[in-house]
């Protein structure tokens, strides 16, 4: 499958890669260059492969409250929140962003790899609400970086975009086209995401042209991955999946056990947790990859690596791995990469990078 911007990516010299059936840009100028540009200036990402569902009707809120572990009732109009949705056994179906447009209209953004599965799951558990796959109706662009707000003020007539707080959004215009602009993203930087009619592919070039003085560059999935790892953010299929519960990874904050009920609550509140996802820093010059085994000081297997990369900001080899809950920050473990063991240090969180500001 291709997003409507496929030809634009090719014309910008992207190296394309298959991502769960989607032909997506892996990189344009290079992963490290795009990563650094996102941290220091601003980048534009095509994330139109992600799924977008509309949930409507008087039972929409109740339905989402049952599905999501986070508290959807806390949302006001024009605000969004991040939430896992779980199976009855506490394993994660997906992690998504829920946007409240009105009391009876919500927009969900889900992982590309889970589109079909999620749609079935949501329809199955949202009997009376109207659930529609709206993925093909819009383009989804992410403008991310410290200069993102300055770029956005040039492309919309909306006056106070910079006053949007994280996870707030507005319905406004971009280059004259109706759009939703939200202060969200998955890079650990300030940024915005733009939903606009899928025929308006011209916006890609226009945005890049208008923002050229801010050194905007297109960035691909490669940089998206290194950015989210530095920011300590989970990727479904790598760090979380149906065999992982939110309590084993740094998503406890998004599970509101005080909610009357949600799918998975019983399992989550009774299950014993014996492993946790931690950040690690590899002490040698290798890069750990998903699936590499973790060995403890006593030589026993302790878990596995879920994500690993070179951090362009820290210039270190970092990642996330599962370890037994009794392992403390600062402890040493060994990671098996290509059959050889390399020393690594357990960090106190999965977050390696925090931007200055809010």
């Amino acid at each position, binding site marked *: 499958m291709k997003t409507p911007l496929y030809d634009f990516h090719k014309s910008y010299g992207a*190296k394309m890669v298959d991502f769960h059936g989607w032909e997506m840009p*892996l*990189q344009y100028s*290079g*992963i*490290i*260059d795009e990563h650094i540009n996102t941290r220091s200036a601003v980048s534009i990402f095509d994330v139109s492969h992600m799924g977008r569902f509309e949930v409507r009707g008087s039972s929409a809120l109740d339905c989402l409250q049952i599905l999501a572990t986070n508290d959807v009732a806390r949302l006001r109009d024009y605000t969004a929140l991040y939430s896992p949705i779980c199976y009855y056994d506490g394993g994660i179906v997906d992690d998504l962003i829920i946007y409240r447009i009105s009391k009876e209209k919500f927009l969900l953004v889900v992982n590309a790899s889970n589109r079909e599965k999620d749609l079935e799951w949501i329809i199955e558990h949202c009997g009376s609400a109207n659930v529609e796959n709206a993925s093909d109706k819009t383009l989804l662009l992410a403008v991310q970086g410290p200069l993102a707000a300055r770029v956005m003020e040039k492309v919309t007539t909306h006056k106070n975009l910079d006053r949007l707080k994280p996870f707030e959004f507005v319905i406004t215009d971009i280059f004259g086209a109706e759009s939703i602009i939200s202060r969200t993203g998955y890079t650990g930087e300030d940024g915005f995401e733009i939903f606009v009619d899928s025929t308006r592919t011209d916006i890609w070039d226009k945005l890049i042209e208008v923002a050229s003085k801010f050194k905007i560059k297109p960035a691909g999935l*490669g940089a998206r991955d*290194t950015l989210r790892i530095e920011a300590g953010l989970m990727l479904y299929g790598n760090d979380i999946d149906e065999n992982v519960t939110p309590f084993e990874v740094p998503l406890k904050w998004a599970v509101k056990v005080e909610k009357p009920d949600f799918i998975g609550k019983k399992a989550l509140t009774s299950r014993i947790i014996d492993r946790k996802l931690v950040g690690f820093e590899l002490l040698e*010059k*290798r*890069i750990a*990859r998903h699936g590499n085994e973790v060995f403890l000081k006593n030589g026993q297997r302790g878990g596995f690596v879920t994500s690993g*990369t*070179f951090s362009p900001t820290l210039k270190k*080899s970092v990642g996330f791995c599962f370890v037994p809950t009794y392992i403390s920050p600062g402890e040493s473990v060994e990671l098996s*990469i*290509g059959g050889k063991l390399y020393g690594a240090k357990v960090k106190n969180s999965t977050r390696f990078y925090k931007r200055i500001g809010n």
Partner: protein
Amino acid sequence: MEGTKFTKEHEWITISSEGLAMIGISDFAQEQLGDIVSVELPKVGSKFRQMQPMAIVDSVKASSDIYSPLSGEVVQVNDELSEHPEWINESPYELGWIIKIKPSNIEELDDLMTAGQYSEFVGEMEK
């Protein structure tokens, strides 16, 4: 690239007038790997048989073994790559050389591809 030979694993090798072989990875290989961020080098004095893995190159997205195009003993490694792994991307045939070996059987060179054969080989892969 006259005199340079290539393996199917995308290493290049040139033989100097002193009979030492310099080894690196091809421009095609560095392009495929993307940003290279670290290199694990063998110790000087280690011996390898032809096409045995001798070093590891890590890029942001993948790890890749470097195979010895010829049997021989490592006489020098490019230590500067530990500070400048990006040289393999920027200058794969010059600054980005990886290892020098003393070949033990120079006839093994006949197993390798010429530059012309290699570019055809790569062309086939890109189809």
